[in-house]
């Protein structure tokens, strides 16, 4: 799903998702983990994750487990890309200056 970066409409919910990833930019978070951190509803959370992934801010992969042996489905893990990290930093920097990109 990695695509060339695209303009992303910044909303309060999008900023919350980015903020949860910026706490530790190297973390790989599933949808359930992001939900635990930003308390967004699933109807809002998953479109944002897919939108940021399509914009090239995130990359995702499957969890490295065997579902049959683990007894549960694989989780989809998201991680910030270097571009996403840079853009997210710029967004929050402009946000702190009162200029919203």
């Amino acid at each position, binding site marked *: 799903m990695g695509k060339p970066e695209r303009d992303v409409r910044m909303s309060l919910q999008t900023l919350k998702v980015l903020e949860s990833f910026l706490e530790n930019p190297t973390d790989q978070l599933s949808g359930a983990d992001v939900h635990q951190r930003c308390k967004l509803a699933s*109807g809002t959370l998953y479109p944002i994750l*897919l939108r940021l992934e399509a914009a090239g801010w995130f990359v995702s992969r499957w969890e490295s487990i065997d579902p049959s042996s683990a007894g549960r489905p694989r989780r989809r893990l998201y991680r910030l890309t270097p571009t996403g990290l840079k853009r997210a930093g710029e967004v929050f920097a402009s946000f702190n200056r009162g200029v919203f990109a």
Partner: protein
Amino acid sequence: MTSERTQDWVDTLTQGLIHHAAQRAPGPLSERLEEEWLADLAERHGKLSRLRLSLGCCWAVYFIAREQRIATVHAASATVAHAGFVGYPREDSSRLSSRSATFFVVVALHVAVLCGLAVGLSGHFTKPTAAPFVTRVIERVPPPIDLPRPPTPNFSTTTITLPPDVEVPPIQAPLPLVDAKADVSPAPPVTDSAPVPPMQPAVLRLNGSPGKGFPNTDDFYPDIEIRAGAQGLATVMACVDAKGRLTSNPTIVQSSGRPRLDEAALKLAKAGSGHYVASTEDGRPVSACYPFGIRFYLRK
């Protein structure tokens, strides 16, 4: 036992909802989203939380599919424009967009309001605020008039004393009255209060009167007065010489009350010149003035 059955029922429902939502997602994402959401569902512990997750997935897939379609159309438009055509990115026209749905809702509301006004819906809710006007005639009662009481007349007896040298005028003979029935009528009594010069008691004077051949009053009775039913008595003063002819124009000394009858009486007195009986003094006719009456009356 019941809790386990409920848990099974919730698991079945939530997994079914997630499967249904994933099937509605675009093809490449369908299997991925179903497995991802089922994995996240396994980490939820509460029944209500699991149900909220599955319902949220049904809501999320709508936006995911919409954004995927827009991205596909953008890519197709870019390809067509690169080939020399100008493309307009359009969404799937088979489904109503939110803008179209809003437009139809607004139109429906307008139609509903217009229909309500057309059938007189407002008439059921409006109430007359005041009773219809009723005209009443108010009789005005006049205020009582307090008139001052007339002063009580003060009758007082006054004694009039006549001077001793006042002479009482002699009573004259009555005036001759010309009647429509008779050519000559006896003179009526004279009640004139004018001062009469004292007469010498040695001379016996008798006033004259209309004599034989004096005109009839019917010939001088004005027609307009006859039609009006007017009647009256006029007293005429005539100055007659010794031969019974007028020496001056007769005059009215007492009006009948109607000018036309007075004028007719003067014409009659003037026409009777030469037919008067002259006044006499000691039996001799003399020139003198005397009054007489002319009566106009209607025969029944």
